């Protein structure tokens, strides 16, 4: 049951709406090799343009990403307005197939600031906090502009180009007693600083520190709960404990050596993380990936979707107290890993995709392995339906709990199963088919109520659809090379290296320094296990990325927790956390 979204943007296009509301026109339009219209507007025009977009496109316009670029060391800016920092708003219309727009606002070097758009898109809250934290760009009228990924005691803004990236750029670390006391002090919980009251009219509240270490927060995640008995009055999530500076590392690793880092972002998604990254690099480099490599990528990505969803399914059941399903599902996941290990040699973090293709061709006998799995899993999934989904206690614990509407989902930037559970059949594989998804048949499962139960049901059905996709891949695997014949393919094709000196030199440089990707900006999105995963890369014509932006689905999803948890019991919050399907590495990067 798909909700149809009517949007005037369908006829007008987002760029037209923006130009209507700009009396003086754009500062500039920037050609981008990913084909997304990129418009520069002045800081003063931001609020009116955003308000107009929000009003005109009704419910179907999602703020996909909000980030910044430190432009101060960038050389190839051909024609872009003068700026020390650029704030980038990426908007995507869910109603039309490809209507999206990137709005850029140039800012000066001293005290850069912009008005907040939290009142238009509530989901912008954490994104603006992240930009403040990592770039030091201030947002006026933001309700709660605090650091989000780094600790409150951090000095500097890590993603600025003048902030150190390596431990060796700093004096050796030592923890003095004053320093320790100061850090301890910063951790002290003060309800008023978190926007909570200590007392109601007739009682005192209890504050419960759920996490960062708690069996059901799926990683290092902290939620401060304001409780009245076991009922939650307010909940404030605190993230950043898993922050490892993945974006900053992108600026120090070569284009090729960054691939293994992406694996660890959504650590249950494996090659799902390589996928948008290599696609973005390939867009920058202009590489066309051969069909066999595309099909292998899709097949592996869907295998990882199943593996990830199985973990979700099992841990979800465990979160509401059912002990056994997780063991059965991990057994199935082991089989998926058996296949992945046979193909990639690794299990959770294969780093298997390469710029221009995949690392190697499929091994002998791969087909039999996968077919046996395809034949076995559906029966087991049916069994799990009886065990979990039809269990009356499980239904009582998940039905009607943590529900949100499609409109809310879009306003908060929810994608993936969480969006589809509200009834909107929006899947990035269908919205803008990448790789070879346009040649594959699959349904988009949806829910109706957007509650925990529907989110789980959508996950379960997605596994069946993934099996369908994998079967089509196995049946129709094209022959041919698994790497593009392109000078920037990394590692470069080796066949001719020993025959002529040019190829040898190319190969040598490409392997030792890494490929030099032409200047430009590109983003690539995929439907990852948990929602839309987007990599936006800025190349300044070097061997490393100038700016690597990772937009992860879980970051947006966790923001909704306060909205979902007011007035419910702790046990319900645990069910909601389980049903959101997040991993903290995917949130904190």
């Amino acid at each position, binding site marked *: 049951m798909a909700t149809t979204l009517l949007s005037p943007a369908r006829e007008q296009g987002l760029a037209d709406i923006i130009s209507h509301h700009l009396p003086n026109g754009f500062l500039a339009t920037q050609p981008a090799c990913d084909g997304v219209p990129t418009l520069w507007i002045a800081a003063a025009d931001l609020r009116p343009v955003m308000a107009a977009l929000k009003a005109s496109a009704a419910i179907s316009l999602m703020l996909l990403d909000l980030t910044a670029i430190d432009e101060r060391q960038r050389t190839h800016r051909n024609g872009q307005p003068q700026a020390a920092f650029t704030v980038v708003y990426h908007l995507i219309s869910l109603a039309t197939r490809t209507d999206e727009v990137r709005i850029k606002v140039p800012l000066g070097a001293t005290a850069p600031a912009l008005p907040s758009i939290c009142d238009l898109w509530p989901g912008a809250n954490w994104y603006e906090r992240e930009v403040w934290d990592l770039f030091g760009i201030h947002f006026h009228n933001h309700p709660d502009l605090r650091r989000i990924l780094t600790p409150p005691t951090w000095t500097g803004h890590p993603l600025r180009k003048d902030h150190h990236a390596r431990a060796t750029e700093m004096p050796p670390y030592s923890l003095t007693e004053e320093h320790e006391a100061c850090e301890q002090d910063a951790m002290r919980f003060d309800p008023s600083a978190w926007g909570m009251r200590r007392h109601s009219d007739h009682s005192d509240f*209890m504050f*419960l*520190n759920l996490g960062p270490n*708690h*069996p*059901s927060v799926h990683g290092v995640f902290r939620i401060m709960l304001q409780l009245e*008995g*076991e009922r939650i009055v307010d909940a404030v999530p605190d993230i950043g404990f898993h922050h490892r500076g993945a974006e900053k590392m992108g600026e120090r690793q070569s284009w090729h050596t960054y691939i293994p880092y992406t694996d660890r972002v959504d650590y249950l998604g494996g090659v799902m993380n390589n996928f948008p990254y290599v696609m973005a690099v390939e867009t920058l480099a202009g590489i066309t990936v051969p069909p066999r490599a595309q099909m292998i990528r899709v097949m592996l990505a869907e295998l990882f979707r199943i593996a990830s969803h199985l973990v979700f399914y099992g841990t979800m*059941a*465990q*979160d*509401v*107290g*059912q*002990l*056994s399903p997780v*063991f*059965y599902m991990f*057994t199935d996941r082991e089989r998926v890993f058996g296949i992945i290990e046979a193909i990639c040699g690794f299990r959770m973090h294969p780093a298997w995709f390469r710029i221009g293709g995949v690392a190697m061709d499929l091994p002998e006998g791969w087909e039999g392995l996968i077919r046996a799995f395809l034949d076995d899993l559906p029966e087991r999934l049916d069994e799990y339906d009886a*065990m979990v989904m039809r*269990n009356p*206690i*499980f239904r*009582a*614990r998940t039905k009607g709990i943590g529900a949100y509407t499609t409109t809310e989902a879009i306003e908060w930037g929810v994608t993936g199963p969480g969006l589809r559970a509200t009834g909107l059949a929006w899947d990035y594989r269908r919205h803008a088919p990448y790789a070879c998804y346009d040649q594959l048949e699959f349904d988009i499962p949806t829910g109706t109520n957007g509650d925990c139960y529907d989110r789980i049901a959508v996950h379960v059905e997605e596994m069946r659809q993934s099996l369908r996709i994998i079967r089509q891949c196995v049946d129709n695997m094209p022959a041919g090379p698994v790497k593009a014949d392109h000078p920037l393919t990394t590692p470069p094709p080796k066949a001719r290296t020993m025959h002529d000196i040019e190829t040898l030199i190319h190969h040598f440089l490409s392997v030792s320094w890494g490929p030099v990707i032409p200047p430009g900006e590109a983003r690539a999105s995929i439907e990852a296990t948990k929602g839309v995963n987007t990599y936006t890369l800025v190349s300044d014509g070097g061997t490393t990325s100038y700016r690597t932006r990772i937009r992860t689905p879980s970051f947006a999803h966790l923001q909704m927790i306060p909205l979902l948890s007011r007035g419910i*019991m*702790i*046990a*319900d919050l*645990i069910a909601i956390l389980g049903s959101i399907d997040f991993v903290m590495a995917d949130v904190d990067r």
Partner: protein
Amino acid sequence: MTYSAFFTIILTPLVILGLATVLTWVERRLLGLWQDRYGPNRVGPGGMFQAVADGTKILFKQDWIPPFADRGVFILAPAIGMMTVLLSFAVIPVTMGMGIAGDMNVGLLFVLGMMGLGVYAVVLAGWSSNSKYALLGGMRAAAQMISYEVFMGLSLLGVVMMAGSFNLHDIVAAQAGVWFIIPQCLGFGVFMLAGIAQTHRLPFDLPEGENELGAGFHTEYSGMKFGMFFIAEYAGIVLVSSLVTTLYLGGWRGPFLPPAMWFALKTGVMIIFFILLRASLPRPRYDQLMALGWKILLPLSLLNVMATGTILMLRAS
């Protein structure tokens, strides 16, 4: 006091504690079997000595009392838990001759009283820990106790009415013809649910609720004090199983095998059923459990009492 009675009194707690310890191993092996994994299988034959190894480890662990805890009560709580369970066994008649006080004339009331006291262990542990998770666990235990104590007592009234006695010997004797599980099937079902709630086992392990409260009421406990809660829980399973055997499954009665064997067999089946429940069911929310108790099980047990009374009166007249 005769020599043999004294011997029984010493022996019974030792046997119960030994059984509870073995039960930890049995449960882990069975869960392993049902969950497609091994479970402990390295120490001793079939991993049987794992329980011994764990017991030894827990004995030698640092016995830490958090500085913020209410010391006296904190120490008392696990002792209460252990004591009430062990004392309850005094009135369980294994056979006609085996058992300490099997023919106590208020045997059943004594067990109910001890079970009621047992809740104090959990509530006091949660309270004295002075920690929020433990407090929430203790609070849940109190709420759970209020809901199930009422219908647990009522569900047993049917048995008492049919046997005409609170004496457990008499109750077993009254089952000479047909086991009470047949005429009292409703009471049996209700008592089973109450029994699970009493032992804080999944699906009614809300005071512990590890996915929600970390470890609930015993969050702050470590070493042997934790061990006592742990063993008391398993001893509680043995207790409830043997009670079910006595009240509904005809106690030691059965053909061919010696009476003690029958008792052990029936109790064993009940214990395994308890473990199977843990392997298969999720945990309801605690307001759902209370609603179940007050809105369904309480009326059901009242109905059972009325029906039993009516039938008994009709038969008598």
